[in-house]
């Protein structure tokens, strides 16, 4: 009889633990990173002669349902996706400053500037047109400068972002290290590490958005992290990173604080930023510089061979600012007297006051200026560059997002909490409890009947 009560009690215990687990699952249904838990039970029995007599049930484990392979695949996709997203955002910002709704962008500025020289050729004496030449040249220069500024500001922001991201990476590494420490202790003390593993997974998930990581999980549940073979976290030992700024080559890279070894970051937000800062932004800058230099040289070549209306001096139209060798300015002599704009070719006999030089400058619109492109074509090509990159990136972002969504959904299939399922479990455990209680009641009745005989 005593056994009966014990068996019943163990059943009630298990049902109660089951209800606890279910209630915990339901409570955490919306908790990020939470993996559902399940009770693992085993029957109790004793050997009686040649039979095994049942002695009830016991809880052997509260297991967590999780597939680490899916987690690893998610980390990988995180790196790829956040890399693409950072690039998209940067190019989208650049595009907004390269292309305006008004259409008054570099292409139209260059074209208008050259075309005004065509007007000057038709009317070399006109002061209005000479003023317009200056005005159009200034607007073109402004556009060049704005483009320069937007690229260099973008670079500056990137450098600042990288600095703060490296700080965040170090903090995350330390957090994961202390989780590793706790997990080890819990493991040794045979306590459940479920909650800690959830936290740890969430942290690695966050970190994987920032840089390319190789994740290795030990049997005890600790996580080791490395970047292309260079360890950044081993158990509880963190190798912190710092941002190295090489001012001579104007490049940035990330190194280990101890030993100064460089780490090759090519994925995640940091990978994207470093590539943008070191390669893609400088490429854009050099294209822009080449273009403005070409325009300056071609215009100056012709302009110096011509003469203005006041004297026969040879003057360049554009000059470079002393303090900034990439910045065009208009020759001060021309700014102070628009008569010094050279429209006339002095070598043409009997043609004083001609506009041949102005016409030749206007005709620059049809020469192949850079890489086989005419000036306006190059300008269009240049201002479309961020948009073209963005367009390609957007397609990739969409693709990677879908892949990540699929992985997350697979993760949900294994680890996610299904309310209906949990509620069914609740009914199941509730009924098991009620069943056990009923047996307890019967056993009590049996005891009472037995006791009444003794009375």
């Amino acid at each position, binding site marked *: 009889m005593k056994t009966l009560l014990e068996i019943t009690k163990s059943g009630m215990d298990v049902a109660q633990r089951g209800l606890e687990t279910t209630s915990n699952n339901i409570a955490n*249904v*919306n908790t990020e990173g939470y993996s559902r838990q399940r009770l693992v039970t085993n029957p109790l029995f004793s050997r009686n002669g040649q039979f095994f007599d049942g002695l009830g049930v016991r809880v052997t484990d509260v297991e967590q349902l999780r597939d680490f392979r899916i987690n690893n695949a998610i980390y990988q996709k995180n790196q790829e996706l956040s890399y693409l997203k950072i690039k998209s955002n940067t*190019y*989208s910002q650049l*595009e*907004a400053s*390269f*292309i305006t*709704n008004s*259409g008054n962008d570099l*292409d*139209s500025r260059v*074209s208008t500037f050259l*075309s005004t020289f*065509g*007007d000057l*050729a*038709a*009317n*070399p*004496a*006109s002061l209005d047109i000479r003023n317009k030449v200056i005005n159009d040249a200034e607007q073109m220069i402004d556009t060049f400068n704005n483009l320069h500024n937007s690229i260099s500001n973008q670079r500056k922001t990137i450098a600042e972002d990288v600095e703060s991201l490296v700080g965040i990476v170090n903090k995350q590494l330390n957090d994961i290290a202390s989780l590793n420490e706790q997990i080890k202790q819990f493991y040794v003390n045979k306590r459940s590490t479920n909650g800690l593993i959830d936290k740890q997974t969430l942290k690695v998930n966050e970190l994987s958005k920032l840089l390319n990581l190789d994740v290795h999980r030990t049997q005890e549940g600790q996580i080791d992290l490395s970047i292309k073979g260079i360890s950044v976290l081993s158990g509880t030992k963190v190798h912190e990173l710092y941002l190295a700024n090489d001012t001579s080559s104007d490049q940035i890279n990330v190194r280990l604080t101890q030993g100064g070894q460089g780490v090759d970051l090519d994925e995640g937000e940091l990978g994207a930023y470093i590539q943008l800062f070191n390669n893609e932004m400088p490429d854009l800058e050099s294209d822009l510089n080449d273009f403005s230099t070409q325009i300056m040289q071609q215009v100056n070549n012709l302009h110096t061979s011509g003469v203005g209306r006041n004297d026969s001096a040879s003057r360049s139209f554009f000059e470079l600012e002393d303090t900034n060798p990439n910045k065009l300015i208009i020759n001060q002599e021309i700014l102070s007297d628009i008569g010094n704009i050279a429209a*006339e070719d002095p070598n*043409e006999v*009997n*043609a*004083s*006051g*001609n*506009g041949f030089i102005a*016409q030749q400058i*206007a005709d620059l*619109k049809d020469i192949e200026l850079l890489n086989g492109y005419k000036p*306006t*074509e190059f300008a*269009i*090509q240049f*201002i*479309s*560059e*961020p*948009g*073209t990159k*963005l*367009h390609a990136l*957007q397609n990739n972002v969409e693709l990677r997002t879908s892949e990540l*969504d699929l992985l*997350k*959904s697979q993760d*949900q*299939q294994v680890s*996610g*909490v*299904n*309310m*209906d*399922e949990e*509620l*069914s479990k609740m*009914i199941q455990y509730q009924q098991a409890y009620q069943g056990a209680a009923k047996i307890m009641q019967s056993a009590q009745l049996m005891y009472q009947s037995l006791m009444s005989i003794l009375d």
Partner: protein
Amino acid sequence: MRITQQTIFDGFMKHINENRAEMHDLQQDIASGKKISKASDDPLKFKRARLLQEQIREKEGYQNRINTARNTLDIAEQSLQEVINGLIEIKSNVTRAVNGAHDSASFTAIKQELESLKEELVASFNAKDVNGYIFGGVGNDSQPYTIDSNSGSVVSNGSNNSLSLEVDNNLSIDVTQDGNFVRTTKYDDDLASNPSSYRSYLTPRLLDDQGNTATGDTAFTSLEAVDNYLEGFDNLELDITLPDGSSPNPALVYNYSNNDTVNDMISAFNTQLDPLGVNMTFENGTVFVKSQNMGTNQLSVNGFVDNGGNVFTTNFPAFTQQASGEVDQGIDLFDSIDEAIVNLESQNVDALSAQIDQFGELISHVTTHITEIGLTNNRLNFLEEKHENSKILLNAELSGWVDTDYAETVSKLQRTEIAFQSAMTIHTKMFNESLINYL
């Protein structure tokens, strides 16, 4: 497959966000009227659109220049009309002097009238537009025609270079004119700048199919006619005697090859003539062989030598030696008026009577110039229309690339809206379906 509430929620959010993004894009397209406004919308279409805009700007530039050219030509035409009116009045005055003037008072009155008409004509020749004097060549700041205070004759100070405007791709037209060509019926640039130059010239003639000179002295009037004729030659030798009596050594030979133009022939001869101080040109149907600063020594052009070694002079196919010696420069408008004034002063009715025809010739000469201006104006109108048509086509193409097709976009928006609303409805329904409702 286990589908959790989170899976349903994530899926719902993903689709609802996609729908919202699409609705946002469509709304932007409708509000801005542009489906392509930046390169990331569609890089190829964006670049194409910007190139089209550049082409449109180019056409607008040409149109602006055409308008400038037309204004100048209009003023030129108006001035020449004034010149003709002046000449008609002069002619009628001279005619009146010949027929009706009997006393010195009336001769003096007519003379004074002519003097004032002369001043008016000088003013017409000094017509200006925004760029400066129209009949003074390029960019002259001073009046191209002035009356010399000593001699009273009209002096030309202008240059002979025209202001040329680009009105189409690689097509420039001259909008200012050298007034000397208007002033003188047969004006020669080279002679004007080198009065002592001497020239000999040959007039090309038309040939029939058999190579015989066509009846009458029909001169070639166009390069095409000469080109057609030159097809019959293999090589051609030019026979000239230099002013010192010698012949060029080696001989001047031109090997004709198919598709050569007269200009090719001329430049081939000029390469050989240049070291001899001689120059060949083709002007108004005449091949000129000119030598500069020869004084009284004559350069004689004997003709061409054909394949068989025969020298053709008077009966040379295509080219006939027309004259050697000073070239007739025709009648000068202001000189004629001066002459008439002198004749009126001396009351020389015979001489005045002979001048009536001269003025008639001058009137028809200036009329020819007006006609030429009219032709240029027509050509400009045609070009302007051409640019306008191109612009319309380019704008239409541009619009096709970048403008929102409202019908299409609105119907897309409606479709997306329905999808959005359905997603909302089905989601709230699904999310409410739970075991909780049955417990």
